[in-house]
């Protein structure tokens, strides 16, 4: 990894914790060349833009992701309903074919509150940790978390209302998520109760799907209403400590989105569909520090940008694997 990319890697970790992305100070010469070329050939680029203004946009990755998310959650439901013991438990902790799995954030809350870790919990947490290091940290959010899917639909409703000029997206300070993470960790350790678990929409929804609905769904509904009428994707963006936990795991994950500077026209469609547009600051004209830039750890690897990008400048990548092939 070059120095500019190393610097960006560290920068992106800070961005995950809530810092606003900054304009880069140093840009690799190869990338600078492309930036200058693009600046000098605006007419040519406009022409090319016009030529593929109506590029077909499919939902390949979104459909794959929704299918995965629904199947993963249905596995829990079906497993209990038909008593086939394939995936027992809920998203907070489960057993896949008898093997323990424990959600990283739930396990962390329990460890902090109870201050005692039994072997099974350690095995479950370790397994899930390795799993999401391989699968890309916050990929858990967009590929598994049931709240994410509901929030995506709520976002569509929100965007419709925005178009009708009935609501506007009220942004909130992103540092809040880190603050919440600390608050809930401290609350668990200090009070001895897993306070966050009581309001975790992921846990509530997962249990509601498997064991039947309850009043706790009202809290999830309240969050969705807040997101539709007030602040777009507020829970995932500004509050959820689960997302941050998996984000930290994603720092060392080889699976990520890669941005290629040369083909990009910088129209910013990717940033419009992105849940975490601060990780896509690199696609802004003149910002890319190198010709190829991996997207930071807060990225949920949802693939919406990959689907949206008309030039194929954003792709899934497994670090090391592409070199090997």
């Amino acid at each position: 990894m070059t120095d500019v990319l190393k610097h960006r890697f560290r920068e992106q970790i800070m961005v995950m914790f809530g810092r606003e992305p900054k304009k880069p100070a140093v840009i690799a010469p190869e990338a600078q060349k492309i930036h200058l070329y693009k600046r000098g050939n605006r007419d040519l680029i406009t022409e090319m833009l016009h030529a593929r203004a109506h590029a077909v946009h499919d939902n390949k990755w979104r459909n794959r992701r929704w299918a995965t998310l629904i199947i993963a959650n249905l596995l829990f439901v079906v497993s209990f309903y038909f008593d086939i013991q394939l995936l027992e438990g809920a998203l907070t902790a489960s057993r896949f074919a008898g093997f323990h799995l424990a959600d990283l954030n739930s396990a962390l809350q329990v460890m902090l509150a109870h201050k005692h870790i039994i072997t099974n919990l350690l095995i479950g947490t370790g397994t899930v940790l390795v799993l999401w290091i391989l699968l890309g940290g916050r990929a858990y959010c967009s590929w598994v978390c049931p709240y994410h899917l509901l929030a995506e639909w709520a976002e569509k409703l929100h965007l419709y209302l925005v178009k009708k000029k009935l609501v506007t997206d009220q942004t909130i300070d992103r540092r809040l998520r880190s603050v919440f993470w600390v608050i809930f960790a401290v609350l668990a350790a200090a009070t001895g109760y897993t306070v966050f678990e009581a309001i975790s929409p992921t846990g509530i929804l997962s249990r509601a799907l498997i064991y039947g609905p309850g009043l706790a769904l009202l809290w999830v509904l309240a969050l969705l209403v807040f997101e539709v009428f007030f602040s777009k994707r507020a829970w995932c963006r500004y509050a959820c400590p689960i997302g941050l936990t998996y984000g930290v795991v994603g720092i060392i994950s080889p699976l990520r989105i890669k941005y290629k500077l040369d083909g990009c026209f910088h129209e910013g469609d990717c940033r419009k569909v992105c849940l975490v547009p601060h990780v896509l600051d690199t696609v802004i004209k003149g910002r890319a520090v190198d010709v190829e830039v991996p997207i930071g750890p807060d990225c949920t690897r949802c693939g919406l940008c990959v689907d949206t990008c008309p030039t194929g400048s954003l792709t899934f990548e497994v670090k090391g694997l592409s070199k090997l092939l």
Partner: protein
Amino acid sequence: MNDADTKVGAGGTASASSPHEMGTAPLSRERRQQARRRVLRTILLTGGVLGAALSGFLPLVYARTQRLRPPGALDEKDFLASCIKCGQCVQVCPVAAIKLADLVDGIGVGAPYIDARAQACDFSCDAVSCILACPTGSLTYTKPDFLPVRAGAAMAAKPILLAKEQDAEPTLNLAERIGVARLTRPETCLAIQGKGFKGQARGPGFKGRLRYMAVDRWKPIKVADHPYDVAECDLCVRECPVKGAISIETVFAPDGSKRKSPVVHEPCVGCGVCEMICPVEPTAIEIVPREVWKTS
């Protein structure tokens, strides 16, 4: 208020695309206002989420519900601290005795409990499989050393499961009781009144199930499908799954007259079968959750 918000918000998005170009130049009035609103919204969300989270403590403060926890449960506070709310205990129970608490339980939302009157734990699984299923040790065969055992909570001896009495290993691996049965309404108890009982213990609509050894050791059936006809009611004693936990004894009433009464003994683990099977409404015998055995 809302209108003003919208205008500022809309104006803000147009100029927000290049925040880095602002440098250290003095902020415009509009921008300052926008920043202030953002801070207010941040505080609003903080308050909302924390308020919701902390309101979970209210049911604890008021101690609204005394839940009967599944067998092997740690003491209440440790139980709530360690339960990861996954419901694996729910999934393994052959009689579906375990339910998950809802919003009204606050911090305890998603934590398992047993409503013994509706469906008691009858140890149909033979091996306390809910304990085996628990991934965090909230339900445990043996407590970790640093957790104290309350006096009277520990069983004097491993309870003997009547269903397993002929097996090589007849005991239940249960070190502590989850409660103790108590005759809370003796005046309604049929045994005390010297009455018998005929029919379905809890009526035809009752969905609760029980393992009847005489019917099928491995398949619990509906209590409604197993009518009784007894000259003197002893259902609680008859169906108690634990050896020596309850018996019908002759006792002396305050006026000196002799009468029959169910009497609970030390081996009672608090499973709740007596509470479920009691044919009078409301039940004459109940489990007091987390109660310890008191030697008087």
